[in-house]
């Protein structure tokens, strides 16, 4: 019994993760959270996957991808084509719908990963900011191609996508994405990427094949972005190419840097709070975006390392990266953690 308690204390995530889901789903069932709020929560989850995905490239590997919405668009349209046009999943029984949805999500992820490989291979072999320029261009090119492609609705947008995603699936994929990123970060792959971020020449002379690891991180990231795109398509049931424009990519960058670049927990926190905030502030009408912008300025001025700094939630059990794990309660106590650790090193 005591042993079980101790184990539970060390592995608190096995309770916390289902608990959060049951809480949200229960409140929904009880009618306290209406469909609108649930949709905001789902979009928050999708943005978490996107921000985690971006964190692998921008935070961990130190490369700049500034057109990540392009991969999301690829994932969204490919998966929507799959479930709507190929399988016409709207009329299928629920079990088949689930299978089609999972398959479509996988296809969306793989399609995005293929694009990631195609544009990552030539650019990531070079040192410098070429990736930023190429991804920026890629995002716009994808959007323009979709605009002139009739089978996916061209500029009118794609309608009638079956609503296959629900709170459960989004939540599950968020958890999976977090664990994929955690496992990636806490492995020789993640360490190689961090070495490249800190000093590419030194990484190269320490036996790290820099091009290979940059491409691995980028393709993994693109896959996750494709998965997020599939979630997006099957949640909103309507896709318009202009949604995946440059502003969307910038949103993810804002979530990432406001939450704390390089930190998985920071990405979760940044993506979720900044998705929810404009909705929470809706009662302020035209002032809400002023407050939103003001808050970002405050974060940049007073906490340039992001809300979460270099910290991580303890349930992630990260050993790599010089990170001190914190619980929720420590979040506000250790505000100066990063500054302090820079001075004296953490023990």
């Amino acid at each position, binding site marked *: 019994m005591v042993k079980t308690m101790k184990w539970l204390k060390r592995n608190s995530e096995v309770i916390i993760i289902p608990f959060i889901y049951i809480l949200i789903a229960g409140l929904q069932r009880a009618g306290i959270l209406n469909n609108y709020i649930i949709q905001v929560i789902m979009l928050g989850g999708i943005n978490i996957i996107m921000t985690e995905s971006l964190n692998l490239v921008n935070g961990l590997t130190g490369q700049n991808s500034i057109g990540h919405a392009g991969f999301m668009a690829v994932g969204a349209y490919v998966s929507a084509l799959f479930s709507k046009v190929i399988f016409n999943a709207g009329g299928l029984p629920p079990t088949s719908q689930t299978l089609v949805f999972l398959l479509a999500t996988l296809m969306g992820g793989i399609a995005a990963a293929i694009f990631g490989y195609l544009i990552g291979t030539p650019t990531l072999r070079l040192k410098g900011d070429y990736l930023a320029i190429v991804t920026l261009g890629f995002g716009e090119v994808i959007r323009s191609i979709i605009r002139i492609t009739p089978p996916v609705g061209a500029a009118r947008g794609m309608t009638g996508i079956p609503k296959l995603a629900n709170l459960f699936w989004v939540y599950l994929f968020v958890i999976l994405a977090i664990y994929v990123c955690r*496992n990636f970060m806490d492995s020789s792959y993640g360490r190689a990427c961090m070495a490249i971020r800190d000093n590419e020449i030194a990484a190269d002379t*320490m036996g790290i094949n*820099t091009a290979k690891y940059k491409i691995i991180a980028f393709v993994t990231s693109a896959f996750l972005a494709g998965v997020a795109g599939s979630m997006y398509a099957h949640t909103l049931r309507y896709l318009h190419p202009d949604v995946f424009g440059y502003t969307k990519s910038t949103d993810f960058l804002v979530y990432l840097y406001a939450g704390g670049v390089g930190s998985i927990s920071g990405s979760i926190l940044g993506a979720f709070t900044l998705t929810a905030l404009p909705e929470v502030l809706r009662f302020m009408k035209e002032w809400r975006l002023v407050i939103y912008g003001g808050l970002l300025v405050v974060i940049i001025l007073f906490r340039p390392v992001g809300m979460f700094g270099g910290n991580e939630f303890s349930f992630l059990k990260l050993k790599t*990266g010089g990170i001190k794990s914190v619980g929720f309660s420590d979040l506000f106590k250790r505000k100066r953690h990063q500054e302090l650790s820079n001075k004296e090193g953490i023990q």
Partner: protein
Amino acid sequence: MSVLKADHISIQFGGLRAVNNFSLEMNEKELFAIIGPNGAGKTTVFNMLTGLYQPTEGAVYVNEKLMTNCKPYQFTEAGLARTFQNIRLFGQATVLDNVKMAQTFRTNYSYYNMLTRTGNYYEEEKRITQRSMELLEMFDLQDKRNYFASNLPYGEQRKLEIVRALATDPKVILLDEPAAGMNPNEIDDVITLIRRVREELGKAILIIEHHMKMVMSIAEYIKVLDFGETISEGVPEVVQNDPKVIEAYLGVHVNDSRG
């Protein structure tokens, strides 16, 4: 067995021949040094030996493997490691992680095993951590394993660079000015450390150093460079008394005959 061999290598940057016709052959456990005035091309030689530059002529062999057109990481895989004149640690990572990062190519688990944490993931991670800790303990850095590398004092950063190079398990290790910016006490520590690396771990060492006392006390064989040419080579005593070396360092004695 030769662990590092440079066969008449030269490099040309536009109209400048930075290094001309440099040759070197090192066997296991040997300790060589390259000296020369500033701008003589010592670091350029290092960059050619480690793959950062491709020689325009000649060839480099690491462990008797021809390294033409290889990338620096392939040099490391072949059994060569180096440190840098201006320290290049992974500053945002901890001391322990710095050492682990250098073992990336010695870690054997697949991408799938990494993502799912199955197979030999845990064994390999444990093995790397243990090996890293052994190295850190050997050089008295174990208490600082959780410090960010950029927060270490200067002398320990240099030491960590050497430990990190050792973590790649090389046959030969190249040290670029390991004693730069150190006081006499610290230089003595570096000398002890280099001797230990060679005697306890059995590595061949090639160093570039300006500190003559140090070079003369540890090196078995010295090559002197000036303007990219090898002007003298031999055991320390020979090099010390070579008029060409004295000329390169101190200038020519001019007999002013005009009166």
